């Protein structure tokens, strides 16, 4: 019998539905992989094998009774520990929320359970989703399952902030996982470990019950082994939610049924400004390869211009911290989480002591930046100017999409790097999201698809960016790349 942990979402769902294997067998197999890898990869903050089994048994029972099964029936998944899960600790990888057990379920996770998915556990991440290498978690770094072929065996970054999600999917600890993307946190980690992830249009997935980082940017999405699995899981996650005022009141399209890699009549835009000086030549070569694949799928390739690209990253690093400083004001030691009450302290001292003890370095850095750019006297020069630049970046995309249907670009400027390499230089770390951030600022759907390995044997990803609401166009271009790339590499098991 095949190892069930080699199967993805679609294969598991279909196999459970046809009775080839039971949901319980699937959950047991993945539970075993989660337990075996925990010490080496640190991908999970909390494992919940009993939850996975419970959900699986419910699916098996429903099948035995001949009931209609959900879109994700029998598929156990990893849940990024940024989603509130009722009765299961939710920390956002922070000390300040350590021990917080929500009394409610996020809409996205509730949708997934309703569709028949089960939970293997809560996945590690960068603290409050702030970071690009998963090195800011209070619960320790996640280690990528990949190793470079240079014989050095250096521990590599699984990407951030959804680094636990990416490592867990790549290492076969789960067939799929939730991620959230604020400035690239689904796409960049997916690219680093050779999996597929899509950030849908802003508003497709409800943010209710998701620990907020930067509300105008945060958007949940699936991370899985391939494009079809992402389409299935996104359908299960998305949908209108009256509890989130930014949720899109639109029906969820049948993305899985709409999958096609026939791109005849479609135009693919290649943004001139993404060909930046100093980009890794192997990344540029993979991009050229991607262009050739999309032509092969029938698409016409056109050059487009996104003139404000170079300002996206600095605008992001004003807007995101500004929103974070406001969102994270709620962690004050009164309603939930950590409280540090020094002897004889008053209320203000308690706030300051609690936040000093509860937030990590990067979170503090961003709260300070955010507080500064929103403070009287600087608000116009920094925050308003950044929001004006953001409007120009969105306009660039609108104009580009008058000439093309989707845009193709690299996902990241480099392949994964060793843990510790950039941790002392916040700016160098921020630059990792240079290709991912513009689409986030414009709220557009964007995905990363693995396209090959570099000379060090590490995965590279290609990014497809689409028009607002056109997840289908993005998925289809992704599928065209996937079919032609034939990417089957997986990390050699050392853990």
């Amino acid at each position: 019998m095949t190892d069930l942990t080699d199967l993805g979402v679609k294969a598991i769902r279909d196999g459970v539905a046809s009775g080839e294997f039971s949901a319980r067998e699937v959950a047991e197999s993945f539970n075993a992989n989660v337990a075996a890898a925990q010490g080496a990869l640190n991908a999970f903050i909390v494992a919940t094998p009993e939850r996975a089994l419970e959900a699986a048994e419910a699916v098996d029972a429903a099948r035995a009774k001949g009931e209609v099964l959900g879109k994700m029936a029998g598929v156990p998944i990893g849940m990024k520990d940024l989603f509130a899960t009722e009765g299961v600790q939710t920390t956002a990888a922070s000390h300040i929320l350590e021990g917080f057990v929500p009394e409610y379920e996020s809409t996205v996770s509730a949708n997934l359970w309703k569709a028949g998915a089960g939970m293997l556990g809560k996945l590690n991440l960068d603290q409050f989703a702030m970071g690009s290498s998963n090195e800011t978690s209070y619960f320790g770094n996640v280690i990528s399952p990949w190793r470079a072929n240079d014989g050095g065996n250096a521990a590599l970054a699984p990407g951030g902030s959804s680094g636990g999600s990416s490592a867990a999917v790549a290492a076969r600890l789960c067939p799929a996982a939730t991620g959230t993307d604020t400035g690239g946190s689904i796409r960049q980690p997916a690219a680093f470990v050779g999996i597929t992830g899509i950030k849908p249009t802003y508003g497709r997935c409800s943010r209710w019950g998701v620990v907020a980082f930067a509300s105008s940017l945060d958007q949940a999405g699936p991370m899985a082994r391939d494009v079809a699995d992402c389409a299935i899981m996104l359908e299960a996650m998305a949908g209108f939610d009256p509890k989130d005022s930014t949720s899109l009141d639109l029906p969820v399209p049948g993305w899985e049924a709409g999958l096609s890699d026939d791109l005849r009549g479609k135009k693919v835009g290649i943004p001139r400004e993404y060909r930046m000086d100093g980009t890794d030549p192997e990344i540029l070569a993979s991009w050229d390869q991607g262009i050739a694949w999309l032509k092969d799928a029938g698409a016409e390739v056109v050059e487009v211009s996104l003139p404000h690209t170079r300002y996206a990253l600095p605008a992001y690093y004003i807007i995101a911290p500004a929103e974070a400083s406001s969102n994270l004001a709620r962690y004050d030691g009164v309603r939930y989480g950590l409280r540090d009450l020094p002897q004889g302290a008053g209320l203000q001292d308690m706030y300051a002591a609690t936040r000093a003890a509860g937030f990590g370095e990067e979170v503090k850095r961003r709260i300070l930046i955010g507080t500064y750019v929103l403070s009287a006297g600087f608000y116009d020069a920094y925050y308003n100017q950044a929001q004006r630049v953001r409007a120009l970046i969105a306009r660039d995309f609108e104009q580009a999409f008058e000439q093309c249907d989707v845009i193709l670009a690299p996902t990241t400027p480099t392949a994964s790097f060793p843990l510790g390499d950039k941790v002392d230089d916040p700016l160098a770390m921020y630059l990792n999201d240079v290709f991912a951030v513009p689409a986030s600022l414009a709220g557009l759907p964007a995905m990363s698809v693995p396209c090959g390995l570099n000379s060090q044997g590490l995965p590279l990803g290609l990014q497809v960016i689409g028009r607002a609401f056109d997840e289908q166009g993005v998925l289809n271009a992704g599928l065209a790349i996937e079919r032609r790339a034939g990417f089957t590499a997986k990390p050699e098991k050392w853990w």
Partner: protein
Amino acid sequence: MSVTRETVAKIASLARIRMDEPELDRMVPELNAILDWVEQLGEVDTSGVEPMTAVIANTLRLRDDVVDADPLTGGGIREKVLANAPAAEHGFFGVPKVIE
């Protein structure tokens, strides 16, 4: 524009984060490096451009003016609201004394 140690101390106090001297000393150059880098936004001509307020055009919905309309976000769930409080007494959040 560059921040001084005093400015960082002021921001930290506005952000309600206690910072000791060595931590302030560490933050000053880091914040300055980031602020120097974001200065480049000043080069962009944004005259006549409105700051973005909504990333995807959407109208603000208002819910019906009904008490406890939603079972998840409505009222009547005091026990749940207080369940994670570091200190709760008599159905309220407990905080250090604020009035002498």
